[in-house]
């Protein structure tokens, strides 16, 4: 049952998190993998989904239930999530330059559990709780402060947006049931606001263009962490949120145009970044951007969103990115032909083929979209691989993994599984061969090398336009306003004006008082006279009149 699986994964993850870091890493990783395999078997073996919900009593007169019963579509997504988590474990194990593997694997496991909880959610709070907790897990997995900072700022803001739109819906609908979104749709309050906020939230989470800085900032991390973060964590959660609340997209006229616009910008931006930026980890991040851009374009253009195909596409993208950073620069002593014909090249072709095929399958209901996406993917992947194989990247990082067969294992396994479950795709073998031929041509010719001068521009390599725009347009004015307010309101208005006036008034009274009481005889005369006058006036008013 899924419930059991979730708890097994959760507790295994927690134990792994606290396990000794530098010892028995493999043991713990295998343990985790076994737990996941058991979970997959449990999930796939379930004939009738069990109706499991845990009452999460929030307050005396309001209880929320945590539902762990995936409907069929979510079941497939759950499988996909678990598979990608297993892949993350695998690559974590391979990455010898990462010294906190147990810790990271624990976080991956708990993150997977949270993704599953989000997938199963039938109420807003379960979804929101899963999203928030997943952010904490991913935050913990980032082991550089500047990367952490960017990440948490962006995702905190995204979570707040999600919270606000769910709060509006809760406030107006009076219940937290996601299944009853149609009820909300019928009343249509603040529809544009809700949709725009939802989209911004998911854009931030998935690293869409203009909101992608957080994922660029994680480039100093090890490649296994980067891939986990880009493909198996927060961006995936963003898609889950969008998919869960997709019913809201219909309530505003701006939703689909925005989706399309941003997906296009993202794909283009990602492509340019992947081609022209030299740092391999940043290239990897831009590849992730392309992936998510294409995914959002499917949301924008396709009539339906297939979970199976999406997760296939996701796994293929993950494999590609992993392969991209793990592929070794071939020896300079080999000829071009030998460099092309070696095992790495075969693996490269397999990875690229599966990537492009899975995309085609994903977007096949819209031929135009599929073709354009295919083209972009092809050009970019070809350019990247050409750089790796032709040693054109001026700033290539040394890689950690030496044993190519360990890298080949997941690729071959996934490809076999892909072919097994999608053997119909083999019927398209002429198209596949044609595409691969075109790809190879691009690879060999590498037309983008003529734009190599762009790589030398410092701004392209090191500039961060988005952060600069945010700082200039948002942060700087806030700082200025804050300082002005402190100066004007606190100091000038309150302190110098109001408080000073009162203080001066009291000082003046005390001054008068001291002067009046300075000389005994004079003061006694004055005060006695005053007293007599008062008595006389009172008599005059009260009696004489």
């Amino acid at each position, binding site marked *: 049952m899924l419930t059991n699986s979730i708890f097994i994964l959760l507790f295994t993850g927690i134990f792994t998190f606290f396990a000794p870091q530098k010892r028995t890493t493999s043991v713990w990783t295998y343990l985790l993998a076994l737990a996941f395999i058991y979970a997959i078997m449990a999930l796939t073996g379930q004939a009738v989904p069990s109706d499991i919900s845990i009452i999460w009593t929030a307050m005396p007169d309001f209880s929320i239930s945590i539902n762990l019963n995936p409907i069929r579509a979510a079941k497939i997504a759950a499988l996909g999530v678990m598979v990608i988590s297993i892949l993350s474990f695998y690559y974590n194990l391979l990455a010898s330059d990462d010294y906190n593997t147990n810790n990271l694997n624990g976080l991956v496991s708990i993150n997977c559990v949270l993704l599953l909880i989000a997938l199963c959610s039938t109420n807003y709070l379960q979804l929101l709780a899963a999203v928030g907790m997943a952010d904490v897990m991913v935050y913990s997995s980032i082991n550089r402060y500047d990367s952490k900072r960017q990440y948490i700022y962006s995702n905190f803001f995204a979570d707040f947006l999600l919270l606000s739109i769910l709060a509006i819906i809760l406030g107006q609908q009076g219940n937290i049931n996601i299944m009853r979104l149609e009820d909300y749709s019928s009343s249509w309050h603040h529809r544009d606001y809700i949709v725009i906020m939802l989209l911004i939230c998911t854009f931030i989470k998935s690293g869409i263009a203009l909101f992608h800085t957080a994922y660029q900032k994680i480039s100093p991390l090890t490649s296994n962490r980067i891939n986990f973060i880009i493909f198996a964590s927060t961006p995936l959660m963003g898609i889950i949120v969008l998919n869960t609340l997709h019913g809201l997209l219909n309530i505003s006229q701006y939703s689909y145009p925005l989706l399309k616009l941003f997906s296009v910008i993202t794909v283009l931006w990602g492509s340019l970044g992947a081609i022209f930026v030299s740092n391999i980890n940043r290239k990897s991040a831009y590849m992730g951007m392309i992936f998510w851009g294409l995914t959002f374009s499917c949301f924008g253009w396709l009539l339906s969103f297939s979970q199976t195909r999406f997760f296939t596409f996701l796994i293929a993208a993950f494999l590609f990115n992993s392969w991209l950073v793990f592929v070794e620069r071939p020896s300079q002593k080999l000829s071009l032909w030998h460099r092309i014909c070696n095992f790495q090249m075969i693996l490269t072709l397999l990875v690229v083929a599966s990537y492009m095929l899975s995309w085609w399958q994903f977007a096949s209901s819209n031929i135009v979209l599929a073709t354009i996406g295919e083209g972009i993917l092809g050009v970019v992947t070809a350019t990247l691989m050409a750089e790796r194989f032709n040693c054109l990247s001026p700033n290539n990082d040394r890689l950690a993994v030496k044993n190519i067969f360990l890298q080949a294992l997941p690729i071959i396994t996934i490809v076999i599984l892909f072919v097994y479950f999608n053997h119909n795709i083999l019927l398209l073998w002429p198209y596949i061969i044609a595409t691969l031929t075109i790809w190879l041509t691009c690879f060999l010719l590498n037309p983008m090398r003529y734009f190599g001068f762009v790589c030398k521009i410092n701004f392209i390599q090191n500039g961060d336009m988005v952060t600069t725009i945010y700082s200039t347009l948002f942060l700087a004015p806030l700082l200025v306003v804050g300082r002005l307010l402190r100066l004007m309101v606190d100091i000038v208005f309150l302190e110098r004006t109001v408080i000073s006036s009162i203080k001066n008034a009291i000082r003046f009274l005390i001054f008068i008082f*001291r002067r009046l009481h300075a000389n005994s005889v004079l003061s*006694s005369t004055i005060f*006695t006279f005053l007293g007599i006058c008062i008595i006389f006036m*009172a*008599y005059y008013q009260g*009696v004489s009149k």
Partner: protein
Amino acid sequence: MLTDYIALLPEIILAIGILILSVVRIFRHSNTPKTFYSLSRVFIFISALATALFYNQNIGNYLHNNSFTTLFKTLMYLFAFIICYLSAKRFVSKNMPSFAFYFTLLFNLLGFSIAISAYNLALLCGGLGMTFITNVILIKIEKPQEERRHVLYYLALSFAVFLTMLIGVVGLHYYLHTFNYNEIEKFLEVRSNLIWQHHFSFACIIGSILLMMGVAPFHFWFSNVVGKCILPVAGYLSTVPILVYFSCLVNICVNAFYPLLGWFNTVFIIFGILSIFIGAIGANSENNLRKIFAFSGLYYIGVMLLVLFPINDNSLMSSFTYMLVYIVAMCGIYTIFYGYRSKGKYMFNLDDIKGVATQRPFLSAALLVFMISLIGTPPLLGFLGKLSVINSLVIGHRFVLLAVILFSMLILAYAYLKIITVVYFEPRDNTFDIVDKGVYWWMFINVVIMLLAVINPKYLMHDVELMLVAVF
């Protein structure tokens, strides 16, 4: 026939006490400062007992005793006793003669006792006037030659006050041919009988009493006197006379001059407001501790005055409670001043007691308790006083006065905060002498009384009220 004068027993005892003190002073040469204290306390104690025993005995139309007068006399003796005890510590520590102080004290108690019970204007005038004049002896104690000018000034003032009161009394007698309160009231009730001379005499008498109380604008003498005299005298002048003047004022207004109170109410209100403001501002302008509390006393007297008039059950109870709270707190504060001593000198400037809390924590804690009580912060006794006052003003729909009192209280609280700051927050400059155990004991008893009174105020609020309304 002797039983007709049994009510005079307390006064007789006091008179005997004065006599014995004088005899001892003249004929006994080996007197110590404690000698006169030991004698005085006996007579005060016996007088207090006698007062309580013969609480409802009258002497014709001259002196009337009832629960009202007994209450005030008892309180007077009680606080006088405390002052006596603490003063002895001071005289012993300085090894200075104490005859003048105790003699004058007993004399004053005698005069006050007569004045409180007086049902006759002449006795009132005699009692209050003589005591006011003899205060000059107290003020003169241990005064250096160059400061005797102030003594002369006070002497002149006291004579002037006495004269004013005398004029009022004599004038009234001239037109009404009586000193008796009852007869005066009956005459004044008939409005057609009233001429300006009656009002003038009335104003002279009441004005004199108000001046003796130190009510603004007649407050000018009080702070100077209290600020410059020795500690026992300052403590005495800040506590005991206030009680007495209050009771005399109430007595005479209720039983003699009630028909004339109508127009004088305005005077009370203006004087009250002036007292409040001058008291609050004055407390902030001074650095002399006794002057600070003298001015704060002015504030409390002002509040009492505002609440007291128009005189009815409720207003009398409220103002009495407020006054009692003030006197208890003031007694406690002066007790603490006996503990603030450095190199044999009693500290009276604010700067002298910087950081004293670090060396005398219990005394300072008690000072804090008393000052917070004076502000009226619950759960201390002052809250009871504040409750009575504000309740009374609300019942009387006197919201403007209420606002004035609250605003001035904030200004006064500022002065108290300065003292608390100096005592607790400033670094200590002086080393303070060891405090006599008696001071701690009285301080402790004072605090306990305050706490008990606030925990179970039934006696104060209910039983005392029954005693107070006996004046009507």
